[in-house]
């Protein structure tokens, strides 16, 4: 599926916004909000940070709309802004110690989901996803959840296709290992 080209609808909305019709931007916000929100929430693991990143990405895109060379590609361009924003938001949040913990000792101290808790599958998945490095999590989400092609991912992330394939592979392996471990508890 990739990053959808909405085509003339986006082209027209972008043209109107650039022409001074600020309200036309609301159409674009409504159109892309949910999909981008899903990525941000999963990437950052924190709804508050995700909404902040999402809002900032929309505003940043509006301010830089002249740099969107092709209105039909507005969605992909906006996606790139959000991916970048999530990286910096994630880094900042981590520095505040709010979201991602990479210290194994600290992770081991986190309550392991019990068998009963595993019935709440989404919580377990989110927990497992949060244990991936940001690079692996980003690659996994873009490939498997957002259904992007590797070439599109390369454009969004600045990483090479081979590196992205490796990240996705490792992410899958690590997710499987983490979830298998959770199943044993």
């Amino acid at each position, binding site marked *: 599926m990739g990053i959808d080209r909405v085509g003339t609808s986006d082209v027209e909305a972008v043209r109107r916004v650039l022409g001074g019709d*600020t*309200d036309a*931007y*609301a159409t674009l*916000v*409504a159109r892309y*909000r*949910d999909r981008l*929100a*899903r990525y941000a*929430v*999963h990437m950052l693991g924190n*709804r508050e940070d*995700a*909404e902040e990143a*999402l*809002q900032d990405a*929309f*505003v*940043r895109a*509006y*301010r830089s709309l*002249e740099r969107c060379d092709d209105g039909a590609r507005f969605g992909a361009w906006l996606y790139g802004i959000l991916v*970048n*924003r999530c*990286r*910096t*938001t*994630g*880094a*900042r949040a*981590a*520095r505040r*110690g709010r979201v*991602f*913990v*990479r*210290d194994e000792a600290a992770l081991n101290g986190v309550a392991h989901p019990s068998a009963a808790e595993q019935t709440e*599958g*989404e919580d377990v*998945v989110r927990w*497992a*996803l949060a244990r991936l*490095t*940001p*690079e692996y999590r980003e690659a996994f*989400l873009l490939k*498997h*959840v957002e259904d992007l092609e590797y070439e599109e991912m390369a454009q969004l*992330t*600045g*990483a090479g296709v081979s590196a992205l394939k490796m990240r996705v592979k490792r992410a*899958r392996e690590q*997710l*499987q290992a983490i*979830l*298998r471990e959770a*199943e044993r508890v």
Partner: protein
Amino acid sequence: MFEPDEELIGRVVRQLRRPVTVDAGLDARVMEQIARLPARRTGGLRATWRWIIRPRTIRLSPLGALAIAAVFVAVVLWRPDRPSSPAPASARAFGFVVVAPRAATVSLVGDFNDWDAARTPMQRTRKDESVWTTVIPLTPGRYRYAFLVDGVAWLADPAAPAARDDEFGAPSSVVTVGGS
């Protein structure tokens, strides 16, 4: 009983693809924030900023040898003679330099710009295109920072103290700005 690997990943993907709801007021907040923005600029402010940080205003000569010797990154701090007018009176202009020969873009990110890669893009110097520079006003305080190369590679500054709290996996450095 374990699922086959593909089924397990498939289950994960199905769960992650479920719709995520965000605050219903997000759209309104975006539009309100946009409504408060000034009229679109044509780049005048950006051009002025670029003029201010042109390499000729930066004393890079001591860095020539460093640029050759450094593998990836170097930084120098100095005080330009001219004050930065929009900054607080206590702010001082600090220059950051990084050697990144293969980079297409380099940004300075840190506590001072909310770790936002878009806010402080660095510029290539004229003398040596592998050297990237920028100048920012900093008020007295302690700041963590890093260089973001091509939007993906985080580089700490080997010439500055390392920040210990790099739990996101991105190395960073610390600069301390003293009072006058």
